[in-house]
């Protein structure tokens, strides 16, 4: 901006100095508020010298294993079932599309406990769809399957939303040109559309995974809190607190979750920036 002369610039810098002075204090308070609890967690967790012992308890190991397995399955199901939906929502018009869109937003804004109750009413032993399943000898509520379903309900919309935005951002001309070059619609989807949407798909997958990993309310209501089969890490933290023995185990669990979240977020930044797929 060479057009704005030196006078303007000096003027703006002075104004900025005044503004910065006023804004710095609340900004620092904000950073401290977010940073201090996490720092305290790390200080207590690693400072006690017993982090390794706390992490190797069966409560922690079981929940860690269960969380890893269930969140991974959730992610896989969300991708396989959610990608076609995201693509259709982004590229086609169909009756009831607005309703589907709304349905996808609801789990994002609803309290997860509501999701848990809804799932229980639908798939619980005496639920709408659960009763015939029960008659067929299939039990869902309070099993590991229920954990996956609870996670899926609250986290899949994050993947579908992001993937949809990715598909929407692709100019239709790419698919048009691919078809004039002889590619069938399916080949066009896999060789052109999917690679072009890749950054969004990865971002959506990471958001979905993170949400599944932190899922608590819906799981507690629909799947219960049984060590080994439904007690994921967030539930293990609650259980460890309720047992009242020591605060060290919840701290260790929390630190693992903080670490996982940080890794996922870093991954998101790197993939969203450096991917060669970007247009």
């Amino acid at each position: 901006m060479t057009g704005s002369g030196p006078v303007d610039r000096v003027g703006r810098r002075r104004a900025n100095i005044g503004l910065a002075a006023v804004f710095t204090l609340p900004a620092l308070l904000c950073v401290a508020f977010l940073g201090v609890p996490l720092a305290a967690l790390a200080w207590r967790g690693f400072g006690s010298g017993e982090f390794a012992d706390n992490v190797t308890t069966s409560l922690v190991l079981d929940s860690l294993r269960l969380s890893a397995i269930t969140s991974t399955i959730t992610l896989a199901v969300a991708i396989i079932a959610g990608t076609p939906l995201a693509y259709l929502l982004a590229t086609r018009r169909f009756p009831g599309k607005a309703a589907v869109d709304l349905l996808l937003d609801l789990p994002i804004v609803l309290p997860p406990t509501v999701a848990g109750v809804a799932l229980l009413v639908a798939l619980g032993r005496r639920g709408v769809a659960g009763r015939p399943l029960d008659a067929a000898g299939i039990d869902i509520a309070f099993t590991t399957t229920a954990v996956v379903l609870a996670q899926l309900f609250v986290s899949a919309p994050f993947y579908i939303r992001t993937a949809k935005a990715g598909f929407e951002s692709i100019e239709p001309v790419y698919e048009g040109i691919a078809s004039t070059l002889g590619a069938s619609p399916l080949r066009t989807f896999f060789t052109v559309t999917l690679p072009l949407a890749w950054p969004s798909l990865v971002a959506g997958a990471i958001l979905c995974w993170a949400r599944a990993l932190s899922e608590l309310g819906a799981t507690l209501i629909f799947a219960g809190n049984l060590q080994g089969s439904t007690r994921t890490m967030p539930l293990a933290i609650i259980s460890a607190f309720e047992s009242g023995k020591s605060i060290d185990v919840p701290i260790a669990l929390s630190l693992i979750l903080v670490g996982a979240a940080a890794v996922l977020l870093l991954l998101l930044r790197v993939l969203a920036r450096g991917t060669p797929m970007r247009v």
Partner: protein
Amino acid sequence: MFRIDIQKRVGEFDLRPSFETGNELVVLFGPSGCGKSLTLQAVAGLLRPDAGSIILPGGVVAFDAAAKIELPPQSRNVGYVVQQLALFPHMTARQNIEFGIARWPAAKRRERVRHLVALLGLDGLEDRRPRQMSGGQQQRVALARALAAEPSLLLLDEPFSALETPLRSMLRREVGALRRRLELTALFVTHDLSEVHALADRVVIYDEGRVLQSGTREEVFRKPVSHRVAQLIEARNLIPGTIDAYVEGVAVVRTPWCTARIRDPEAPVRGSVYVCIRPEHVIVLRAGREAREGDAVVDTVIIEEVAMGNTHRLFMRALPLHTDLGEPYIFEVDVPAHPYEVLGIASRRDWRIALTSEHLSMVARSS
């Protein structure tokens, strides 16, 4: 032989293109938003017409509403280059070119890519991605990709509009030469009249979804069929007059500023017309020199001039032959730099001009 005659309604816009062509480069020319690009989309199969038919070279029926025939785009074998190129950004130049011939045997495919790379001067760029290439290089890759599967028809939608002028005229020449070498039928969309001059074997003049005129470039420029076509091809001088007589294929048209003799076997015998002549076909006469037999002569005064690089455009005012005949008429005259200097046009303002008879045409005037 390529033939299109379709109707398509897009919102309020009514598209009804109709023309045919042999093995030529056809320029679809008209103002922005006149339906040229939509026509190409329909030919490529990306836009479904409401009615009519499209016959591709080789007699392939791509679309026929009456017979309920509609080939999907992937079965039409039409090469399509769009303005934004739409090179696949995640693929190298080679992968882009190979996209349309993925099913060919590997050896044949490699040979084809090698051939196209040589043909379009892309040596050494095969493994670059689109964003690692210049605009002109991307243009060539897009062209190679469209040509790879040996299409029967090439569609070019303002392919050079994003490029700088020197590169543009170079690629224009290359595309023209390439098309002749490959003996392809090509439809080339542009709103730039200079591309019509540079490229067209045949011109289709579009306006508001309709074809106003279609013919060889010479035909259209020599004899526009309407006032609107004359405007679009920038004939500039449209002089209102009346047919006075018609003798042996020559119409005598009287205007308030001159009388013109126009050879036109199909001319109407009487009526109101515009006499039509392009700025470059008007001659500024040296002092004392007589006009040729048959040319219309007008005495004028230069009222403004614009230097346009290698030519000067003069705005020359002519008074009516009788004061009660109306307003002065402003002729637009292009004089190349050399005659401009030799004649000493800058030295005085009164000049006699001649409207060369072989370049005169006329279009009907409703009044």
